[in-house]
């Protein structure tokens, strides 16, 4: 074994070094240095993204095939990192509030460790590494969910998250154990040749799927989502809803195509059922939600269903559509959460849909951004969401799932309805006591600007998509 192989894992290494730097800074820095903590983190992360993007132009296989990296995976990692940066930028105000000011470092460290977990999830070509990655990605998240120590909602959300997560990982491991039992190996490549679709394999596949389905929050594995999203600090909710979910989708796609390639009929059937269930049920729930974060939870479940439309394709085409969808989803969703985060402190008991009444009159810019983001989520042109949705539908249609596409399309109408409810609240509903004009801090502004740019230009400028397409495998 060559220890130099560690050095080839450039994204992971650079992230780890940031991890260490932050850790040390957190330990040592005092007073005025702490004030620039946030900025430093952001800069470091930016540098890291750069390393990520430029790092690996070639494919790398390490540790006897346990670890694999290629440009596409690097791109995915970079995407997740960028998303995290946006989240961190938005977190500024919250982190500076009295209760969290001295826990800043913890926040960053926890977040970065989940990010490392996600990296491993993506790069794993062995179930052990995958398992470690998944756990590494979810355990710190539980801490983040329960980060607001003195808010019992946060604690409740945290306990719900951690218990569900444990439950699901037990189920998943149980499935993996049977895979191992029947194949005698945990390497993806070896396993793929052995799997044949016997009942035990199906059993294992479903169990494994349930485990990742939990992280992606597909129906019926989604029930923790709403509660945790609502209870968690907004920043964490944002992180949960895009980054964690995105990573899980990528992983699912990789595992399904790498390991279960022979069982494509089976897993397509699973996705078929779960997609319909997710989109429909999530939409039904979303209609009735008043709490915005809860609402966004169901929206994200439904979005996950749409992402599954790309996964079901299972080819490079599907991968492109999926990555693009997630990219667009990240910017749009983060824009919404950015707005929620900025107004949260004005609402006593969570942000309600009613709080948005008359929002446009008082905060035209934020409301405008929010509208665009919601339109993008609903798939309205000329915003990026339209393009990503269209491609997702195309890829599912390409795979021959017309009825599925049709049901999904009908559901877009319902989803449009509830997104419009918020737009309506902002623009149409009158309110004597609207949210006061907000002045966002610099970091949030940067973050929201990037989201806005993404929403507007990701679709119209096709080069992003084309480049993703070139990388897809």
């Amino acid at each position, binding site marked *: 074994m060559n220890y130099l192989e560690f050095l080839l894992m450039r994204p992971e290494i650079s992230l780890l070094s940031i991890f260490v730097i932050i850790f040390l800074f957190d330990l040592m820095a005092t007073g005025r240095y702490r004030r620039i903590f946030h900025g430093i983190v952001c800069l470091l992360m930016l540098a890291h993204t750069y390393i990520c993007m430029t790092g690996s132009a070639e494919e790398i296989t390490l540790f006897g095939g346990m670890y694999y990296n290629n440009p596409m995976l690097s791109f995915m990692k970079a995407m997740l990192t960028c998303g995290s940066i946006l989240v961190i930028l938005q977190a500024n105000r919250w982190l500076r509030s009295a209760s969290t000011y001295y826990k800043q470092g913890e926040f960053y460290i926890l977040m970065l460790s989940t990010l490392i977990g996600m990296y491993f999830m993506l790069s794993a070509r062995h179930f052990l590494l995958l398992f470690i990655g998944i756990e590494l990605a979810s355990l710190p998240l539980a801490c983040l969910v329960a980060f607001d120590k003195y808010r019992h909602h946060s604690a409740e959300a945290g306990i719900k998250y951690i218990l569900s997560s444990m439950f699901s990982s037990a189920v998943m491991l149980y499935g993996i154990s049977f895979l191992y039992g029947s194949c005698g190996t945990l390497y993806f490549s070896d396993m793929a040749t052995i799997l044949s679709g016997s009942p035990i394999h199906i059993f294992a596949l479903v169990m494994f799927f349930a485990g990742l389905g939990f992280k992606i929050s597909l129906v019926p594995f989604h029930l923790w989502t709403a509660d945790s999203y609502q209870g968690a600090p907004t920043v964490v909710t944002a992180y949960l809803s895009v980054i964690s979910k995105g990573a899980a989708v990528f992983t699912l796609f990789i595992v399904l195509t790498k390991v279960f390639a022979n069982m494509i009929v089976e897993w397509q059937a699973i996705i078929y059922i779960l997609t319909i269930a997710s989109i429909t049920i999530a939409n039904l729930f979303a209609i009735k939600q008043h709490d915005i974060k809860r609402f966004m939870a169901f929206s994200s479940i439904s979005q996950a269903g749409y992402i599954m439309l790309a996964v079901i394709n299972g080819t490079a*085409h599907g991968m*492109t559509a999926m990555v693009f969808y997630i990219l667009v989803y990240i910017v749009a969703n983060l824009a919404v959460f950015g707005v929620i985060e900025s107004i949260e402190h004005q609402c006593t008991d969570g942000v309600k849909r009613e709080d948005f009444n008359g929002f*446009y009159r008082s905060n035209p810019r934020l409301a405008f951004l929010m509208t665009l983001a919601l*339109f993008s989520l609903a798939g*309205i*042109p*000329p915003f990026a969401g*339209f393009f990503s949705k*269209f*491609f997702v*539908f*195309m890829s599912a*249609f*390409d795979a021959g799932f*017309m009825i599925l*596409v*049709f049901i999904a*399309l*009908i559901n*877009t*109408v319902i989803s*449009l*309805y509830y997104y*419009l409810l918020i*737009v*309506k609240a902002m*623009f*149409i509903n009158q309110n004597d006591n609207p949210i006061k004009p907000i002045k966002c801090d610099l970091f949030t502004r940067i973050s929201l600007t990037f989201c806005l740019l993404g929403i507007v230009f990701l679709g119209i400028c*096709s080069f992003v*998509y*084309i480049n993703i*397409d070139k990388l897809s495998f």
Partner: protein
Amino acid sequence: MLVALWMSRGIKQIRTVMVAGSTLLLALSVYLTIDFIAMRNAGITDAQLYTDSWSWYTPLNICYSIGVDGISVAMLLLSSIIVFTGTFASWNMKPLTKEYFLWYTLLSLGVYGFFISTDLFTMFMFYETALIPMYLLIGVWGSGRKEYSAMKLTLMLMGGSAFLLMGILGIYFGSGATTMNIHEIAQMANIPVNIQYIFFPLTFIGFGVLGALFPFHTWSPDGHASAPTAVSMLHAGVLMKLGGYGCFRIAMYLLPQAANELAWIFIILTTISVVYGALSAISQTDLKYINAYSSVSHCGLVLFALLMMTRTACTGAILQMLSHGLMTALFFALIGMIYGRTHTRDIHKMQGLMKIMPFLAVGYVIAGLANLGLPGFSGFIAEMTIFVGAFSVNDTFHRVVTIIACTSIVITAVYILRVVGKILYGKPENKEHLELTDASWHEKFTVICLIISVAGLGILPMWVSNLINSGVANIISNIQP
């Protein structure tokens, strides 16, 4: 498109910018039309002129390709006229003026884009772009049950576009997933018939919802009733035409066999639309409802004519689109102006407006007469072309439905005259109405522009007819077996 420029200007100059922009567009359209005719006269017989194509999403064969034929030129001209007049009609749009025009511009951007694009994806994108601003335009600046109507309208149209998207995907993959360009697909003509059977109804209904096809028309009365004036104008005048245009350009052009086989179902539906819309209009009491149902009837006639699949009928259908676009815009403009003064649209509450606001009343009478197909206005030529064309399909079924559709011209007369008699004539009884003023200059300008267009089309129909004919011939030759 210059449209995007308008957005960033200051609030003070919005009007100036809008007027300048829409005038420019109108000028461009007129220039385009003239140039197009000149090129046709010069003997250029390509199906599309000014074609251009930029590869966009190469992996998916999506291009941003544009091009116009006679039909789209005509529709562009129509859109420009209505956008132009709509700008004047919404002169005094009060709250959030800038936002209003911004969405308004986005809406017109979608419309223009739709008419010039020749790529399925681009077309669909512009189609949806045109739909969504409606929600805010109605929801924020509308009147009455605006929230309900706006939501209903948006959702129904989006439901339609869900059908449509299915149809588009079906066409793309049915033709072998090699190109999204409409004309290339049409030339390949390789979509299997059984696939056509599935996707023709989907596509047709998808566009039909916007074209107020029975029974998917119910968004139209509520939507129109609640929308602000200019939006009603643009919506009824142009947006509803997207439906007919799309049915023709995509559903029928690309899926010809199924179109021939399944036309009868839709012919029945459209016939119902035509008569049913007109009959419903008789017993409405809200001016806008009357006009909305009238639109249902007239747009039904458009689809009806398209489905007849003869060259004459289809030319008539396009003429009807133009004519209905202008007339309805005129109607809605007038209704908006009247409503702006009387604050009611109930026909029982208004009398003798002829005395109070003669200009608007005369305009209304002219619009009414144009609407009921008076020769000299556009409605007449459109309807006659349609009926002559429809009648030339020689079998009993088509004959019968044509005759049924013909009855609509009588029913139209009934409801138009009922309204004219009720609100314009007679003695003004409502005291509050006595002090109301007549149209202001920009309102007059709007009305006069539209009347001139309607009458121009009605008096000199041949050039428009020739303009359209070449485009129609190309498509029809593909449809006819």
